[in-house]
């Protein structure tokens, strides 16, 4: 028995509806979404089509809804259909439109779930990626797997939970309105029913990175400006050298794409909050309020890693900014695009379950994220206060050219 009797009309319910002419066609929303993408006049709309997927170089929005999916069908055609439906739906939502009619046929569930109706596009970006497992034997894609798309190796400091890690597909939805971002994940999961199931998902309530020179550096939950030296979208040179997959790849379909590394990094907030200020600053290598390196006076001063005081390095040998600095990593950089998260309290301990949902884009995770994390994970003073609880790697295909193009189209040939 249902606690509340089903509101779904059963006996006799269709009587009134029978006289109505079906409003709208029976066709699925994709048909509609595949209309040419008119340039939206709304300044809060980020163009969906382009050389690269939006949501990477786009100035980081305030909110994140992220989900990883496992493909459950063995049917390659169904997978393609899903990616095409996601593409069309993404194009609609980026323009602030529903993926299909909300009010159509009184006897049908609405095509779009409706919670974003009337909300502006809110700079929504939808970014889709493919996990290493998508290239196993199931869909005949093994020959298309880029060498760099290898599951991340075990890294120092890993305490990964399988149920928060991995996935065949991922969707990163970023917007300035959390409901607009969540609307994407919910409707994508719905479109996926029978084809893929959500493996894990994560909401991020505040951006921790600036990816544009127009943005101020936000603070992470430890109260520090982290990521001051992030790659900025305005630097085409750095984007090409570190973020976009280029001619170096052996997989032409991925050119113009990137690799997304996601790490759920739980902060041991209660412990951190009892650490004394000088130690907190020693851990990061920065002044807490201004964000300036301990060797400078302004946030954007370049840290002087050689500076010494009384014979000891001013920036500790294991300070976070030293180990993460390009100079300590053979010049390598990554584009960080993470968000603060909280998932309530840890039911076992009563402690806050909160931290950083770290997202980084790069052109080769082996030389970039993995190398940097090895460096950090081994020695970073910050390790005392963080735990990596989730991890995933995805290849993010290049942007969709126009309506009719879809994620991975060239991959399926």
């Amino acid at each position, binding site marked *: *028995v*249902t*606690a509340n*009797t*089903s509101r*779904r*009309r*059963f*006996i*006799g*319910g*269709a*009587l009134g*509806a*029978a006289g*109505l*002419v*079906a409003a709208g066609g*029976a066709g699925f929303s994709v048909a509609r979404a595949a209309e040419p993408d008119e340039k939206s006049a709304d300044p809060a709309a980020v163009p969906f089509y382009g050389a690269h997927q939006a949501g990477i170089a786009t100035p980081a929005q305030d909110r994140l809804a992220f989900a990883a999916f496992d493909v*459950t069908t063995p049917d390659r055609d169904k997978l393609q259909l899903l990616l095409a439906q996601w593409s069309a739906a993404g194009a609609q939502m980026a323009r602030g439109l529903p993926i299909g009619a909300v009010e159509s*046929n*009184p*006897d*049908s*569930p609405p095509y779009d779930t409706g919670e974003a109706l009337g909300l502006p596009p809110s700079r929504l970006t939808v970014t889709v990626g493919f996990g290493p497992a998508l290239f196993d034997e199931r869909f005949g894609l093994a020959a298309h797997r880029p060498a760099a798309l290898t599951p991340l190796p075990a890294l120092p400091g890993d305490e990964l939970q399988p149920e928060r890690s991995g996935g065949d597909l991922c969707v990163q939805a970023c917007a300035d309105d959390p409901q607009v971002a969540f609307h994407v994940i919910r409707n994508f999961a*719905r479109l996926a*029913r*029978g084809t893929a*199931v959500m493996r894990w998902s994560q909401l991020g309530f505040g951006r921790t990175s600036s990816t544009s020179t127009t943005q101020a550096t936000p603070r992470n939950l430890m109260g520090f400006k982290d990521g001051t030296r992030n790659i900025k979208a305005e630097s085409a040179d750095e984007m090409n050298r570190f973020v976009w997959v280029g001619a170096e790849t052996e997989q032409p379909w991925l050119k113009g794409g990137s690799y997304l590394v996601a790490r759920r990094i739980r902060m041991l907030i209660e412990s951190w909050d009892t650490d004394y200020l000088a130690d907190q600053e020693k851990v990061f290598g920065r002044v807490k309020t201004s964000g300036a390196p301990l060797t400078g006076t302004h946030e954007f001063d370049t840290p002087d890693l050689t500076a010494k005081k009384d014979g000891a390095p001013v920036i500790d040998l294991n300070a976070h900014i030293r180990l993460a600095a390009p100079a300590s990593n053979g010049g390598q950089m990554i584009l960080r695009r993470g968000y603060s998260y909280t998932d309530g309290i840890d039911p076992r301990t009563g402690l806050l379950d909160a931290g950083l949902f770290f997202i980084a884009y790069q052109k080769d995770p082996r030389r970039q994220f993995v190398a940097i994390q090895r460096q950090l994970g081994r020695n970073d003073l910050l390790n005392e206060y963080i735990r990596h609880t989730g991890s995933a790697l995805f290849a993010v295909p290049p942007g969709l050219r126009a309506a009719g193009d879809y994620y991975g189209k060239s991959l399926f040939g």
Partner: protein
Amino acid sequence: MPAISVRRAAFVVSAAAAVTTVLAACSGSDGGTASSSTGASKAAAARVATVTITSAKGCELDHTSFAAGGITFKIQNKDATAVSEVELLAGERILGEKENIAAGLGGEFAVKVDAGTYTLYCPGAATEKSTIKVTGTAAPVDNSVAGLLKAGTDGYKRYVDTQVGYLLTNTKKLDVALHGTNLAAAQDAYIAARPFYEKIEPVAESFVNGKQNLDADIDARANDVPASQWSGFHRIEKGLFQDKSLAGLAKWGDKLVADITTLQTKTNQLTYQAPDLANGAQGLLDEVAASKITGEEERYSHIDMVDMANNVEGSEQAFAQLEPAVQKIDPNLAATITAEFAALDKVIDKYRTTSNVSGYVLYTSLTDADRRSLAAAVKAVQEPLSRVAAKVANA
């Protein structure tokens, strides 16, 4: 797929029906698909099929060819402990069935069939399926969408009436056991009665009228209703499986028989419209998703998998009645739903067992991974199924 030709004239014209049919335009076709009794009466072919079920050979028939018209299946289960029912199927639709024929028991059921190919299905038998060929003058079949929908709603009417009949029979047996002294026998009787309610639950839910709520009377869980008003299956379940005592349960058994008798009176007067079947099918899957996968339904006996399997069967049967029409309206949708139901059945079948009397593993042995795979399979049916009501409402 051959159209079902069995017709009980009474229900279509039932003056007491709460609902007039949407398909009034084709009401003249009531007799249109009546069985070819003329051809049948001339045929000297068998009218009775003897079905023998054995552990070694499964389900065996003495005849597999019949003339169109009435056929009676007489069933004897000699020693097949894994088999408890026999069904006659047209495609996936159940035309007639006999349940509760455990090893050592027998029974019979009768159907009227048109020319065509049918399957005698004995779930769990060494030989599960036998093909039956029916020949002779086929009754004129109305193959229009409206005609197919009419056949479907009529078929569903028969299905519900049959299940409610079994429900009443088995509830009476439960009541007898509750009046007795054998706790184990009463527990088994509870488990035997549950499936029939779970197959047709949305029909019972439709009889909510102000404070009168037959579904709640029959199937409320603790806390769904004030304690003083709690009666029905789950009140009895608590006594049998938690308190493990028959004390005081007889009065609840008597009331349950009375409530289900009322239910039967009401359902016998019902007619159905095509969207009812679609919404009912969906409602049953909602039941699975809302309270079976979470183990909230059978809190004391933990036979939630039994409920789940029967919710799904009821849903599948409702859709199967619409399938021939949906096939014409939107073949892709019909094929998708059929495939997703088959996939769901496969998942559920993994939990069949002979290690307890319910035939399924207990809810308490399911893992989170089990629940997730069940939920995903249910959702995979729900999404395409949700599009059926609109298709048939305006067909």
